[in-house]
């Protein structure tokens, strides 16, 4: 089988091939080692791809298959602008304090409620934003209860990666997959939200077994929580209403973007523009400055690096290996992808991993169905479960290690600044088992839904 593919689609291992492969491998190795900031590595390696003529600048900047996926970039930037405008209204402090009070000051109940709130927020916003907003309050609540904050922090990071799996905008891997595979917001809801709904109660049961009995507090501390007045958080009720209106509009837009024939990035950009207008700001400078530019440039750099190795044929070589391994059996492919993605995401951060896997999956599909193209190819009934396996493996795999997902990096960073260091191994001791449990359940889901019931 391998020979047929290889003979129909030949490629040459010339100098360009080895140069691009070297840039890719060295860049990814340095990103994993964290010796140099990942954004710096990505920008430099991307520029090398162009300077060394692996990619033309035109290809890197303007060709969707080889260069920057502006759909992903504008979706991320627009959502960040919306959140930056929403934040000062106090809505997130309100939600967090209200949640803690719902827990009646009981340490585990608060942990469970926070896990659900984080999961829901992560599904509607993105993970990084969610944990950035919730982690400080988590530390505050743990201080009020005089309990160890680390279980709360770990739980927040893990829940955000599980919750983010549910939607197109929930987790960066999904945003990237949706754009490359032309999948809609509702496709994600229909295919991934059900498994997340199954996973959340199991997750909460798991954290109850781990931490449930270890968290103890007294009446005085519970009283501190109950005496907090969440209404005090709402600093700007008018702006809060405007933000919620725009957020609702954006989410509705996402739900119907397939029918409306508008890309998610367009919907989000419209929301950002509208909220900027409604906020009546005269100084958009600080709102735009607070966009997480290092993350945005990390994406831009990765797209170009992966474009380089796609152009020289490394991606094709890898897809042939994959087909060789699975002998073109799509069930086997899904299974390999979900588990390989989970462990690979734990090791290399799921964003560069998915950036590499997207073209690989598309290339594999081209080998399998050479006569198809466009949506017929991308949405081939046998290929769809592969996309969902990639999304599930990459998103849930983010829990496997401290660097698996951006949310983990943020939580660990804030925690360390606050004087509670979470070591790489400590994170893994909780994250890895939870990753394995969730991926195992997701595997059963993929098998049952797409290969047994075929719905």
């Amino acid at each position, binding site marked *: 089988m391998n020979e047929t593919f290889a003979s129909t689609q030949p490629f040459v291992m010339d100098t360009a091939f080895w140069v691009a492969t070297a840039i890719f491998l060295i860049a990814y190795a340095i990103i994993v080692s964290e010796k140099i900031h990942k954004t710096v590595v990505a920008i430099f390696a991307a520029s090398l791809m162009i300077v060394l003529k692996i990619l033309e600048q035109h290809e890197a900047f303007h060709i969707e298959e080889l260069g920057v996926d502006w759909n992903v970039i504008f979706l991320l930037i627009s959502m960040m602008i919306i959140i930056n405008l929403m934040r000062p209204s*106090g809505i*997130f*402090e309100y939600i967090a*304090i209200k949640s803690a009070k719902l827990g009646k000051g009981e340490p585990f109940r608060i942990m469970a409620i926070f896990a659900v709130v984080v999961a829901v927020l992560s599904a509607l916003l993105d993970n990084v934003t969610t944990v*950035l*907003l919730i*982690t*400080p*309050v988590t*530390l*505050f609540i743990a*201080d*009020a209860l005089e309990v160890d904050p680390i279980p709360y922090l770990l739980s927040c990071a893990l829940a955000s990666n599980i919750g983010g799996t549910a939607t197109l905008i929930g987790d960066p891997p999904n945003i990237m997959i949706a754009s490359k595979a032309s999948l809609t917001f509702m496709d994600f809801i229909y295919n991934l939200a059900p498994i997340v709904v199954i996973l959340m109660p199991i997750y909460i049961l798991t954290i109850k077994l781990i931490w449930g009995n270890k968290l103890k507090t007294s009446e005085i501390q519970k009283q*501190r929580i109950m*005496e*907090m*007045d969440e209404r*005090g*958080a709402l*600093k700007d009720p008018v702006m809060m209403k405007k933000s919620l209106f725009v957020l609702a509009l954006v989410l509705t837009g996402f739900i119907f973007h397939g029918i409306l024939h508008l890309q998610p990035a367009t919907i989000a950009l419209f929301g950002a523009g509208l909220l900027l207008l409604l906020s009546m700001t005269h100084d958009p400078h600080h709102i735009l400055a607070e966009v997480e530019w290092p993350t945005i440039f990390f994406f831009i750099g990765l797209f170009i690096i992966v474009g380089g190795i796609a152009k020289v044929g490394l991606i094709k070589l890898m897809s042939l290996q994959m087909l060789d391994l699975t002998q073109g059996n799509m069930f086997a492919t899904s299974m390999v992808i979900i588990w390989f993605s989970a462990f690979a995401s734990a090791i290399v951060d799921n964003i560069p991993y998915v950036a590499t896997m997207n073209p690989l999956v598309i290339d594999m599909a081209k080998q399998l169905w050479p006569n198809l193209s466009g949506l017929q190819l991308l949405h081939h009934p046998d290929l769809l479960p592969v996309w969902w396996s990639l999304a599930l493996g990459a998103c849930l795999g983010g829990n496997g290690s401290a660097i698996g997902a951006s949310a983990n990096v943020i939580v660990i960073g*804030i925690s360390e*600044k*606050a*004087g509670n260091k979470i070591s790489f191994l400590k994170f893994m001791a909780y994250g890895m088992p939870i990753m394995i449990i969730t991926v195992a359940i997701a595997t059963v889901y993929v098998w049952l839904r797409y290969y047994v019931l075929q719905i």
Partner: protein
Amino acid sequence: MKAKDLMIPLQEYLTPDHTLKEAADILRIARRGEEKIGVKALPVLDSKGKLIGILSIGDILKAVYPKYMYLMELGSFTWDGMVEALAQKMANRKVSDLMTKMVITVKEDSPIMECIDHMLKHNVKRVPVLNGENRVVGMLYEKDVFYYITEFMTNSKSEAHDNE
């Protein structure tokens, strides 16, 4: 007029191994000039007398202020006893953990305008004054610069006259 002309010569200082509690006691009783009113900051010198930081009352406020509170607006939800508990917890931490390590300094011969430049751009109220061997010889306070400036406003004094 140079920095050395307005500075208060160095009398007390802290060492990195002082606990916060000890440092607070020294800050409370340290002399500033001839008045025994306590000071708002002291330089931290290592065993060789080299300047390695400065500890101000702002640093002591920061010691009881949880870092996560910078990130969200949580001030209105705090409880009675929060500051007190953190103060007790932090009492035995070392000065070296909490001091400001990036210290803005001036030289003995730095012109006053340069000192003002540092004070305004870095938002500090006092700067250690270093001699040619980089030893701290005194502290220049915002207040003394203020007194100096106002002399010229109220008495229309000229520096030339002052130097006579």
